[in-house]
């Protein structure tokens, strides 16, 4: 089943066309990595898909439910429903600094989804366990390392029980020795068949976890396919040039 479908997405900031005509879809359980040079529109695509940016044209459909149809956004109720489909993990974590780790996880499920409190707490503890931070439940974000904060951010996104997760360069703000612990969590999620779309610069990681790799440049999807095709045997000269540069 198609969990996410994007058709002919267009996005421009004033006169600057960032995304020209993007069409892509993500199947349930699929892990898709998006790579490309900076300025290629990867992050903007993610931000349009998560509705942090308003797209100028095209469709955005989650699980068959349209959030945007031909550039026209659905009504508030529908958008609220659609938002339940996905979670987003930011490059800079964006944890709430005044909330403890636990509260970061449980606050939205309690006050936005209005689910049962005891259940949410139990799930949150399990999630912290999964990301290896059960002992940090009462800590505050400022007491954690970058890698730990990002793992909390992943747990926070999962606490909302989304059907898919977006990652916007989840390791770019981390010291190299901290990226491994975050990538490990992403691997775990992939093994659990979590549907994920990951914007990343970690080519080796993309090769290891992705079912499909999308290469973007100048606001277009230039090439996409299984990692062994796109990463190891790229057909497009732009992909070849990019990979040569980053893998030197």
């Amino acid at each position, binding site marked *: 089943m198609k969990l996410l479908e994007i058709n002919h997405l267009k996005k421009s900031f004033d006169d600057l066309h960032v995304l020209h005509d993007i069409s892509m879809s993500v199947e349930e359980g699929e892990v898709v990595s998006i790579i490309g040079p900076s300025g290629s529109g990867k992050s903007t695509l993610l931000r349009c898909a*998560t*509705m*942090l940016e308003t797209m100028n044209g095209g469709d955005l459909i989650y699980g068959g439910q349209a959030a945007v149809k031909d550039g026209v956004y659905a009504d508030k109720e529908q958008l*609220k429903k659609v*938002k*339940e489909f996905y*979670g*987003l993990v*930011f490059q*800079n974590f*964006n*944890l*709430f*600094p*005044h909330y403890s780790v636990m509260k970061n996880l449980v*606050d*939205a499920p309690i*006050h*936005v*989804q209005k689910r049962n409190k005891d259940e949410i707490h139990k799930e949150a503890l399990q999630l912290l366990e999964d990301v290896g931070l059960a002992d940090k439940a009462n800590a*505050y*974000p*400022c007491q954690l390392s970058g890698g730990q904060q990002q793992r909390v951010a992943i747990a*926070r*996104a999962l606490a*909302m029980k989304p059907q898919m997760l977006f990652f916007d360069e989840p390791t770019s703000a981390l010291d190299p020795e901290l990226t491994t612990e975050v990538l490990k969590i992403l691997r775990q999620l992939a093994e659990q068949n979590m549907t994920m779309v990951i914007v990343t610069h970690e080519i080796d990681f993309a090769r290891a976890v992705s079912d499909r790799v999308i290469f973007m440049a100048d606001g277009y999807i230039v090439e996409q396919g299984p990692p062994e095709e796109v990463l190891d045997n790229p057909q497009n000269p732009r992909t070849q040039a990019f990979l040569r540069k980053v893998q030197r």
Partner: protein
Amino acid sequence: MQYFVSVVQQIGHGISASLLLFVLTLVFSMPLGLLVCFGRMSKFRPLSAVAGFVISVLRGTPLMLQLVVVFFGPYYLLGIPVSNRWRFWAAIVGFSINYAAYFAEIYRSGIQSIPLGQYEAAEVLGYNKTQTFCKIIFPQMVKRVLPPVTNEIITLTKDTSLAFVLAYAEMFTLAKQVAAADASIAPLFVAGLFYYIFNYVVAFVMDFIERKLAYYQ
């Protein structure tokens, strides 16, 4: 020592009058400042323009002048005779709107210093606008604006002496009268001591709150 006690007795009424003015001004101006701040930050241009203009007038003219205008305004503009009771409320109104303007700008600086990522995280988690402000932005803003707000509050304790232009019998007014009657400078020192003690307490309390909020960065 005996003289000190007698001075305190004579200006005692003024001490409580100053304190009342101080407390009521804070009670009204701090929330009012938040409303003005919302107006100033509104995306609806006419509203933000009006709020911006009001703030600029309140900050750009003397508080003493504003107090006199508030006090005599009803008479000159509407022909309503000014009563003795109005003297008190005119002082409260004058102080409150003036301080609200300053608080509004302090709040605005606090709100605008919160990283955009906090709003985006809240949005992706499904918080609505009210929840985002009340749960995420406001608490962080409070922490950030405490030092400038402390400054403002300390200034306010001293500014209460300006109420003398309305012949409002606050501490400084009475101290001046006692000084004149006794031909002594001591009452002014006593008044000064009380302002200092006020502010010492203010600084102590604000420091306490700041330390309470220091559990996160």
